[in-house]
């Protein structure tokens, strides 16, 4: 499903543009169809960079990222929107449009992909029910709790029925109880056949899920276990 080969990415230091900081150093990863993968590691380890490469926000300096056998590192700019409609993405800060209602936020993802209005009318209520917000369609994001907002974001990410859901610290802003609700929702999405990539700091979540754990540190994969626990090398 996803095949990351020899990916290297560096940034120039803002104080000294000539000096490069290596964010990812020759990463190799393979993620199979229908897998649930935890991406863990301390801040600045390279998790976010990897996520940005996966959603084609940035391109690697070297290497290739094959998603469904297509190298997204070489996508043309005009093809980016079509790739993004095939993946679902959830962020720590939700990234909902504040001036749109819950319904409009979700419908928007369909509108931009030129879906028929009847299709939108049909799919939005179903996905809202799936994330447990069937009665919140007309609310604005500011009227919802953090957990509810993240559900809206997940609903929006899933509205295209993507085969891959990428969640970047989705529980980072949530309290423990809400965290478990979101994790449960992600598991449910996974059980329905979607490949889920979860980047997280949350040790408890990772340990409870008992799924594959990839540990990234200093831009390298330092551990990759089928049924892993949250281990930061040096701490174990």
């Amino acid at each position, binding site marked *: 499903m996803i095949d990351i080969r020899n990916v290297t990415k560096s940034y120039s230091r803002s104080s000294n543009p000539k000096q490069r900081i290596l964010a990812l150093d020759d990463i190799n990863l393979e993620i199979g169809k229908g897998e649930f993968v935890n991406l863990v590691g301390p801040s600045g380890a390279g998790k976010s960079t990897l996520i940005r490469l996966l959603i084609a926000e940035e391109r690697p300096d070297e290497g290739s990222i094959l998603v469904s056998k297509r190298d997204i590192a070489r996508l043309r*700019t*005009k093809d*980016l929107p079509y790739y993004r409609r095939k993946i679902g993405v959830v962020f720590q800060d939700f*990234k*909902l449009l504040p001036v749109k209602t819950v319904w409009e936020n979700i419908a*928007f993802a369909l509108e*931009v*992909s030129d879906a028929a209005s009847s299709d939108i009318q049909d799919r939005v209520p179903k996905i809202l029910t799936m994330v447990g917000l069937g009665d919140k369609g007309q609310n604005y994001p500011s009227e919802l709790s953090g957990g509810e907002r993240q559900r809206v974001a997940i609903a929006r990410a899933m509205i295209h029925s993507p085969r891959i859901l990428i969640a970047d610290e989705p529980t980072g802003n949530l309290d423990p109880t809400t965290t478990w609700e979101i994790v449960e929702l992600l598991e449910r999405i996974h059980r329905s056949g979607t490949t889920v990539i979860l980047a997280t700091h949350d040790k408890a979540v990772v340990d409870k899920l008992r799924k594959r754990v990839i540990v990234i540190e200093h831009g390298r994969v330092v551990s990759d276990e089928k049924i892993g626990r949250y281990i930061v090398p040096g701490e174990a």
Partner: protein
Amino acid sequence: MSTRGFGRVIRLGAINFWRNRWLSLASVLVVGITLFIIGVFFIQGVVIQNTTQAIQDKLDISVYFNDDVDEQVITDIQRSIANRPDVKSVEYITKEKAFEIFQSRPSSEKIKSLITPEDNPLPRSLVIRPSSPQDLEQLAKLFEADRYEALVRRVSYQDNKNVIESLVEASTTVKKNGWILTAVAIILSFILIYNTTRIIIVSRADEIEIMRLVGSTESFVRWPFLIEASLYGVFGALGASGALYVFLQYDLASATPLLSIANFLAPDMLSFYVDHLIIIIAVMIAAGVLIATTMSSFAVRRFVKL
């Protein structure tokens, strides 16, 4: 973009126009003021042109000759005057012709009967039409020369002189002021619309990012901004059209000397405006949309990185 997609970007643009209504209002006002200024000077220019033309066509100098002057002398003068570059035409009015003209005038039969072909006191004359109104005076002065003193009974042109001169002066001033004010207004509206769009784009950076992340194509991000700008143009044009009407109807021209030098033309301007209402509004809308979308697309190209 599909028709459905186009419908959606129009709706998005309209919603954004309303949700940013204060910024929109500022842009609408600037476009409106620009179009208003252009409109005033355009209409004024056309009306001055028409009036000048109309008066110019009627404009002539009549040189009346004493009855004892030999006809040969008059036709010689006619020939020499006709060759001057500042003269459009010279017509010789004989006594018979003068009689015909007199009889054709709307006056009472009693007055008409005072003059008969046999007893005709009407003088012969040369009717000189100048090439341009400015030439009028110098042509008239020709006949003040000594050699004409014994020949010429009277030279008449004074009647229209003041009107002509003020028209000539007005049209020159109006053209000059018109260009300057129009240029200033267009530049101002460019700057303001550019900045308005920039402010909107910056304030919606998050929104644009989210649009991209959920798979918006470039045009789906950009078009709503153009729609929004078009609305500035449309509303600005409608506002300017209304303001123009009020301006002309209530003769506000006399209160704003910078805008209108020839304020005595206001009634003509109003009737021109009313007669050409639809075409004027259509042109205003087209111009407004053009001005607003041009600047907006500059700002969008500059600030929306996709």
